[in-house]
């Protein structure tokens, strides 16, 4: 059988770096991991080229929207608040009573001034003035009502001299060089809003100033403006709290207010990048959102703030007065804004990692499910290749793999069957060959033995004949006749023995060859015929022969079968010894599976040690007997030719012996002599 496999070495003989299961697990794992990663990324960053924005963008736009809202809210609130303040001051400045009193106080001071430089006495006296006291009463009432204004001043419009103040120490000071004074003085209807700094306390404050007109000169353009009303608001107390308190802005939520120059108008919540605190009206902020807002722009931006920290910022322009604007920046640290997003991303990653482990597990499970039957099939194939045909692959599914396994199993089965057939045939033929061989060997050794014994047993009488002839010759020459007759008898016996030997050898050689067609023979008839044939010897030795009834049919060659009985009976007569009542019984032993025939005598018996020897060719136990030693050999040979067995049993010497033998049933043809 050609066992060379087809040349597919490029495919099958290359060792796989990983097994099927590992490769499948890796593939599935990579697939699941990739998909999971994409899903997580899409969740966080959105899907490109679509309207779906991820968590990141959502969070950013949410924060920016929030910032924008807060910024707008603050801006509106601030505008409202500022408008209220403007309304306050306008209402006061246009109050005729106040106008009258201011006018009156101014006149008092003008009168006094004509007498000399103003001095402390003047201001002390002034405070006793009825108009001054009316103003004082009124403004203090405003203060206590609104709880908003630190102090309220009135300065002369022409000189800038402060001639009324809720804080008496201010009386006599000049504010002519102050922006809030100048702006208010030259903007007749307008209200000036300024942030200035108290030189003494270095504290910033918000001023709202407006001119007060002279009621008596209402129709004249000259000296129309008599004074400037200035109301001070502590920005810490109002604006700052209002602006800094940022709902929903978080810890880093911050509001920066700067004027058009970029100088900060409120204390900064955080220190500058160098660790110092920026001073109000001195520190010029250069961060982009503040600059943009101060220049009148509004919007949102992600940029760096005054600390250099990246922030999300909404910047708004606050028009304080028609010719003056501030920039407001509402900002929050990007880091803080994205902290929840980061934690969400972290969560997503953790879930992703758990999912990944699950995915890998699933991949291993899946690949084991898919590759398991294939691997089992492969293992089975390997074992079959190794020569074990008893193995079968488990058929676990009805899919292609399952049907492959089933086909494979039936293939092995067929191989196994043909193997078994072949083995049976080989065993069969081997057995037949062995049997033939054995038969040949048996025949060969029998032939050897035959030649050997024939040469020995035929030579023996020759020696006898020649020897005694020699002595006859010598005796004849010397005339000695004493032992003549005896020697002649010896020669005669030896010749007779040789003749019989030759006859029996001829007979023995015929057993196998001359077989008449087998026929059904009554065993009883065989026995009776044998007794008739040997009638002479039987009567001579006075032997009683008993043949049992109910003997079965046997199947074989009548002539050969009768030889068996004759030889056994003859043998029994020869070894009867000196039995006074010799008896031979022929019958079948009951209670056996197959009929066991016997020829029993009450003669000399046989020592058990000679049971085997007696059936040998020319083997005689008793040299005195006149047998040739061929008779039992012939019996054995005939019985065995018919496939039967023969053996002898004896109670011992003097106890008689029984020869047992079996013969084939009718439908068993005798073994063919080869």
């Amino acid at each position, binding site marked *: 059988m050609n066992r060379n496999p087809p040349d597919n070495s490029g495919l099958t003989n290359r060792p796989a770096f990983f097994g099927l299961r590992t490769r499948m697990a890796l593939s599935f794992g990579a697939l699941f991991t990739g998909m999971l990663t994409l899903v997580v990324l899409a969740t966080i960053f959105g899907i490109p080229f679509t309207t779906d924005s991820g968590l990141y963008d959502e969070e950013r736009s949410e924060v920016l929207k929030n910032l924008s809202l807060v910024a707008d809210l603050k801006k509106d609130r601030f505008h409202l608040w500022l408008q209220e303040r403007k309304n306050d001051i306008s209402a006061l400045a246009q109050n005729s009573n106040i106008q009258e009193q201011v006018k009156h106080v101014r006149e008092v001071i003008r009168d006094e001034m004509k007498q000399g430089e103003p001095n402390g006495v003047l201001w002390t006296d002034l405070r006793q003035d009825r108009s001054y006291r009316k103003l004082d009463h009124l403004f203090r009432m405003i203060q206590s009502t609104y709880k908003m204004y630190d102090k309220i001043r009135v300065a002369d419009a022409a000189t800038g001299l402060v001639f009324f103040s809720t804080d008496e120490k201010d009386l006599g000071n000049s504010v002519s060089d102050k922006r809030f004074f100048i702006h208010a003085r030259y903007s007749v209807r307008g209200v000036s809003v300024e942030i200035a700094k108290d030189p003494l306390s270095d504290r910033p404050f918000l001023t709202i100033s407006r001119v007060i007109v002279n009621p008596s000169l209402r129709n004249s353009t000259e000296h129309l403006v008599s004074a400037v009303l200035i109301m001070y608001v502590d920005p810490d107390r109002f604006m700052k709290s209002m602006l800094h308190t940022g709902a929903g802005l978080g810890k880093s939520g911050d509001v920066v207010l700067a004027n058009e120059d970029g100088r900060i108008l409120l204390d900064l919540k955080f220190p500058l990048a160098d660790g110092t605190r920026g001073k109000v009206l001195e520190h010029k902020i250069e961060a982009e959102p503040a600059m943009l807002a101060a220049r009148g722009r509004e919007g949102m931006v992600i940029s760096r703030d005054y600390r250099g920290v990246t922030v999300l910022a909404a910047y708004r322009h606050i028009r304080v007065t028609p010719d003056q604007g501030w920039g407001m920046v509402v900002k929050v640290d990007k880091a803080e804004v994205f902290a929840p997003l980061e934690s969400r991303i972290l969560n997503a990653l953790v879930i992703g990692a758990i999912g990944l482990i699950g995915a890998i597990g699933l991949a291993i499970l899946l690949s084991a499910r898919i590759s398991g039957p294939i691997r089992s099939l492969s293992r089975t194939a390997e074992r079959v290749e190794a020569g074990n045909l008893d193995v079968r692959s488990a058929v676990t599914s009805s899919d292609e793999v399952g049907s492959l396994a089933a086909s494979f199993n039936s293939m092995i089965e067929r191989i196994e069957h043909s193997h078994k057939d072949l083995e049976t045939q080989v065993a069969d033929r081997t057995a037949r060959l062995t049997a033939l061989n054995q038969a040949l060997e048996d025949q060969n050794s029998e032939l050897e033995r035959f030649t*050997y014994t024939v*040469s*020995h047993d035929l*030579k*023996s009488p*020759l*020696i*006898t004949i*020649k*020897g*005694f*002839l*020699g*002595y006859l010759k010598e005796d004849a020459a010397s005339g000695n006749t004493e032992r003549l007759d005896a020697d002649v008898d*010896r020669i005669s*016996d*030896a010749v007779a023995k040789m003749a019989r030997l030759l006859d029996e050898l001829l007979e023995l050689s015929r057993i196998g060859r001359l077989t008449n067609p087998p026929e059904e023979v009554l065993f009883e008839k065989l026995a009776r015929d044998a007794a008739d044939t040997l009638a002479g010897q039987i009567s001579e030795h006075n032997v009683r022969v008993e043949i049992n009834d109910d003997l079965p049919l046997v199947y074989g060659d009548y002539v050969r079968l009768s030889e068996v009985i004759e030889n056994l009976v003859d043998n029994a007569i020869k070894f009867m010894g000196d039995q006074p009542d010799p008896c031979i019984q022929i019958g079948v032993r009951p209670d056996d599976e197959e009929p066991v025939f016997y020829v029993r005598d009450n003669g000399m018996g046989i020592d058990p040690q*000679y049971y085997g020897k007696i059936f040998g060719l*020319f*083997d*005689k*136990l*008793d*040299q005195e007997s006149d047998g040739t030693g061929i008779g039992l050999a012939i019996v054995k040979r005939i019985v065995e030719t018919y496939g039967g067995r023969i053996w002898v049993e004896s109670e011992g010497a003097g106890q008689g012996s029984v020869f047992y033998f079996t013969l084939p049933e009718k439908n068993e043809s005798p073994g063919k002599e080869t």
Partner: protein
Amino acid sequence: MVKGEPLVILLVEDNPDHAELIKRSFQDHRVANAIYAVTDGQAALDYLFRQGDYADPATSPRPHLILLDLRLPKVDGMEVLKQIKGRNDLHRIPVVVLTTSEAEGDMSNAYDNHTNSYLVKPVDFDKFTQLMADLGFYWLGWNSSPYSQ
């Protein structure tokens, strides 16, 4: 050979005619004083082991030579040879196998079992008597044995 001591031959031969021929040859040539003949292997062993019929040493003097046929009833000659050569008190006795068999196997077996000689009975009468004479003179005359057997 010590004078005055009878020379004993044990003849183991199942064929009485052959035994007679051997005895006559020996007597004609005055080879031995005494020939004890047995006809089967068992009797030979009984004689040598002094058992059974030969239990009395007077009936079974130690032989100076054993003539042994191979094909014997009851106990085969080869077995007898094996037993003799396996016994310390018997193995020095010369054993001459005297048989009709010229089979190669018989010879090898006999020598393997330490036979001292292997002789095939000649069919010719003169040769037969001559062999018997030579055999007697050689083993009982020329051949030396230790004093104590």
